[in-house]
Each structure stands twice: as C-alpha cells, then as structure tokens.
C-alpha cells in the first residue's frame, strides 16, 4: 500500500496543475503577508478587538476560500483514478499481490494526504502570519485544515465512484461543481428558498431526502467558521440566526461522513467485481 501512496505523491508532483496550485497558494500567502503589514492592528486596538479582527479575517478567508480550495483540489486529483484504471496500467496493478481494496484505498489515502499537505501549507502559513503579527494564536483556525481535508475526502469519494464507473475525470469535475456550488447550497437553504413556495409534502420529502443523504460541504464550512469563532456547535438541532437561517450542526459532518463511507464501500465492491 505504501508504494501506491508514495507513487500517488510522485504522480501529483509530476502534474503541472499541482505545481500551479502551490504557486497560487504561495501568492496568497505573500498577499496575506503584505496585507497584514499594512494593517492598523499594532498599538491602537485592545487585545479583545485584535481577537475580533483576527477571527473576522480568518472567517472571511474561510468563507471565500473554502469552496474554491475544495473544488480546485478535486479538479487536481480527479485524474488519479481515471489514470489508474487505464488499460495497460490497471492490468499490471491487479496482477500484483495486492488486493483491489488495498489498491483503491492506497490511491484514496495518497490523494487525500497530498491535498492535506497543500492545505497545511496554505492554512498553516496564513495562521502563522496572522498569529505572529497579532499575538493572538487562534487554534480554531487550524481546524480548517481538518475540515477542508475532510470535505475533500467526502467529495473525492464521488470522484472515485465516477472515475471507476465512467473513467471520465471531466464528469466527476462537473458533478462535484454542481454539488458544491449549486445543488447542496440549494438543499441547505431549501426551507427559505423552496419550501416558502412549495407546499406539497411529497416534494418536500424528496428535497429533505436528498438533503440528508448528500454531503454538505457548505455546512462543513459553516461548522469551521463557528469553530474559528470559538462558538458552540450543536450536535443535531441548529440555532436559528437573526436572518432566519439555521446555524451549523455536527449533523452535516456525520451525514457527510456516512455518505462518504457508503459510496466508498460501494466503489470498493464495484472495483473488486469489475472485469478489466
């Protein structure tokens, strides 16, 4: 398994898209460094204000960057599976004394670890810059590393399934785009967006059904923001905010995990039975 994980890292490094990814992250870090040098933090604000400002900057960054980082990571890693199941590559892999489960899992772990490393670089650098400059070391911001990696792992299970069944990375990118930016946000806001107009219980049931079974990257982001702000995140029932929107809950994380576990298990089963 370790050989496949190491090779996934080599494959990632050989892909220009990942180098571009790191260069872009490097630029973001430099911009952050420059922006913080221009700030008005030093000397003027109380520590409580500094804390508030840093939390706002970190939350704002996560709000903007979370879906983009997630989507770009999925684009970059989408070809790992399709290249693995290429005729001539997969035959040789399967002929080796490594089970199909281990082959797929090693690829999954390798891709997730590589993406995690790039997230550690970006989030870790920003955290260091903000903390060194302000003197406020908000450990909650580091949770972004875990939540982004988790969100990637969840959404990547879709890429794996589509990669195995269609051998097309384009389809997996399109499906992920649709889920991250369109379908899942609409489902999350279904009560405000849809249920105001739709009163039919059958339609409501369908929307609720899809909401609960599908992953919730947007809500994982909301949980992250709440943790950055050191807010309490309820387990199941969210608190309604002043805009009438339901606050984040751990339910979004649990159901996303469940979705990932079920889809990945089915992908393993499919891969184990497939003729190559």
């Amino acid at each position, binding site marked *: 398994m370790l050989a496949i994980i190491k090779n996934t890292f080599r494959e990632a490094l050989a892909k220009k898209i990942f180098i571009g990814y790191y260069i872009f992250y490097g630029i973001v870090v430099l911009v952050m460094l420059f922006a913080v040098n221009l700030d008005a933090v030093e000397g003027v604000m109380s520590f409580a204000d500094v804390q508030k400002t840093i939390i706002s900057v970190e939350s704002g960054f996560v709000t903007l960057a979370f879906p983009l980082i997630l989507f770009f990571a999925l684009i970059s890693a989408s070809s790992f599976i399709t290249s693995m199941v290429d005729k001539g*590559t997969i*035959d*040789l892999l*399967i002929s080796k*004394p490594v089970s199909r489960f281990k082959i797929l899992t090693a690829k999954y772990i390798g891709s997730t670890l590589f993406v995690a490393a790039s997230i550690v670089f970006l989030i870790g650098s920003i955290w260091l810059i903000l903390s060194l400059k302000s003197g406020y070391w908000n450990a909650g911001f580091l949770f972004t590393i875990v939540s982004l990696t988790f969100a990637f792992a969840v959404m990547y299970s879709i890429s794996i399934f589509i990669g195995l069944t269609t051998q097309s990375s384009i389809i997996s990118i399109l499906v992920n785009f649709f889920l991250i930016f369109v379908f899942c946000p609409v489902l999350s806001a279904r009560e405000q967006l849809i249920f105001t107009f739709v009163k039919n219980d059958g339609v409501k049931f369908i929307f609720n059904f899809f909401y609960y079974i599908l992953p919730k990257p947007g809500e994982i982001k909301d949980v992250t923001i709440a943790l950055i702000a050191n807010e309490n995140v309820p387990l199941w029932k969210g608190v309604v905010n002043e805009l009438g929107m339901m606050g984040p809950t751990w339910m979004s994380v649990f159901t996303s995990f469940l979705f990932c576990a079920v889809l990945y298990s089915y992908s393993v089963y499919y891969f184990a039975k497939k*003729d190559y």
Partner: protein
Amino acid sequence: MALIETQNLSKEYSSRFSKQKVNALNNFSFTVNEGEIFGLLGPNGAGKTTLIKILLAITFQTSGTAKIFGLDARDSKWKKRVGYLPENHKFPNYLTGEQVLGYYGELSGMKRDSKMMQKIDEMLALMNLTQWRKTRIKKYSKGMMQKLGLAQSMLSNPDLIFLDEPTDGVDPIGRKEIRDILHDLKSKGTTIFLNSHLLSEVEMICDRVAILNKGDLIKEGNVHDLTQAENIFMIHTVNTLSPEIKQKVSLIDANAGVGDNEIHTETQIETLNKMIDLLRSNNISIKTINQKTSTLEELFINVINKDNTN
C-alpha cells in the same frame, strides 16, 4: 506438475446497452506444466488475452475453474510467484526506468533494500538499459519499454511468467536478446506462458502450443509433433528411376509424384515401406527419406481456415 490448469473455462461478455452476448472463451480446458514454455496462438479476438486475464484474476470467468499452483485463480496468495507483462502496458511516464522497477518490485512484495537495488541493477544490465536508468521513461522507445516491461516481470524471480506480446515493437536484435533471456529463464526452471503473434518466434521458443479460434481450443500439442506434416514423404535415390520402376511406383500410390531421382508421396507408413521394398528389390540405392515438416505458421493458417470453414 501442472502449474496452470483450467476446466471448462468460459467467458461471456455482454453489452451494457444491448442484449447481444459474445463468447470470448468456450469450455476451455488445458494445462501448463512446470518448467515449460507454453505458447498461446490465435487470430485477433480469439480470446488469448481474456484467458491470461482470467488466470491473473484481472477478469472473472462466467463458468468453469482456473487454478494456478493448485489454488483458485481468484485467490491472490499465489501472485507473489507470478510475473506479468501485459500487451500495450503503460508505466507511469513520470518515473525513471529505475523507479519503475522499484515501484513494481515493491508491489510484487519485495522490500526496498540493497538486495532489491542489486536485482534492479542486474535487470537493467540484462536489458541493456543501464545507461537509461535515470531517464524518465517517456523518453524511452517502444523497444526499450518492452525490455523494461520484461525486466519488471522478472524482477521478483517468479516461478511463472505471463508474457503478452513481449517482442511487440522490438527490433530483430532485441528479439534475439529476448529469446535468449527466455531460454535462460527456462533453463533455470521458470515456467513461461507466452502469447505472441510472431509464430516463427513461438516455434523457436515454445515447447508446447495451443491454438485458439473464436474462444475454442482447436489444437494443442508439442511444437515438434504439430509441425510434422502427416504422412508426406520425399524419397531421394542415388540411381535414376527407369520408366518401368516409375510405373510400378504409380501402381503402389497413384498420386505419387515421381521424378528421375525422387518420389514425393502422401501415404501411410505401410505403403511407404512397400515403395522402399520395390526400390531395394530393383537395386535402387536410397539416398534419403524425409518426412515433410510444415512451419507453425502454415499449421496455424491451415487449422484456422479449416475451423472457420467448419
């Protein structure tokens, strides 16, 4: 001892969108014994690659059994003892030759230690690839890729090697080198399962062959026996044959081709002996008697045509 054994192995492919089914293998039963070089022949689409893939559990049979080292082919326990070079293999092109061997060596269960590095050095030297070891394989020629593939299949010292078109894209000198390597492997007791379109090479290398057509096994046997044309003999004489002798020969075999110093006959052994008796009783000295042999290619074309006609 049989290293590979199949019983009534069948594989049926069905299209996802239509009801049409294709039989890639029909009740295929055969064995490959330890230490032999076995050749699998057949036209395109005959089911050769499907058979190899079933044996290696890359594809699964619809019915029948396949055993390797006495174990079910789907059981991966035996895979450490097997090497495989697929047709049109694709190695990760961002790796160097040395890294490719290291990667597949590890996947074959080898530990990345000095012993493995020594084995990689040995394989690269054997394939004349030492000077290219640090070069990324995307710069390799087709022949170099085939040699690297062969090195990969041999790296873990397997007891059984499956080679699917190993000389594809390799120049004549490279092909000769590969043949020599295979003979060397055989002398060390390695069993080789070879799938090749180059019949002349199969004839030179293999002990036994099987010919497949449309999923059916239509001929199997020892290469020497198969290439012996049945009952076609050429008798060369020292003395010139007189018209009277020629007439007597024609009485024994009306279809015999009789020249001044040669007789070409397609007949049974008894009739051949009658002809020899006739010649000797007439004081005709016999220089040679040859049984005509056909090439594997001739045999292949004949049996395939015959099967297609039937």
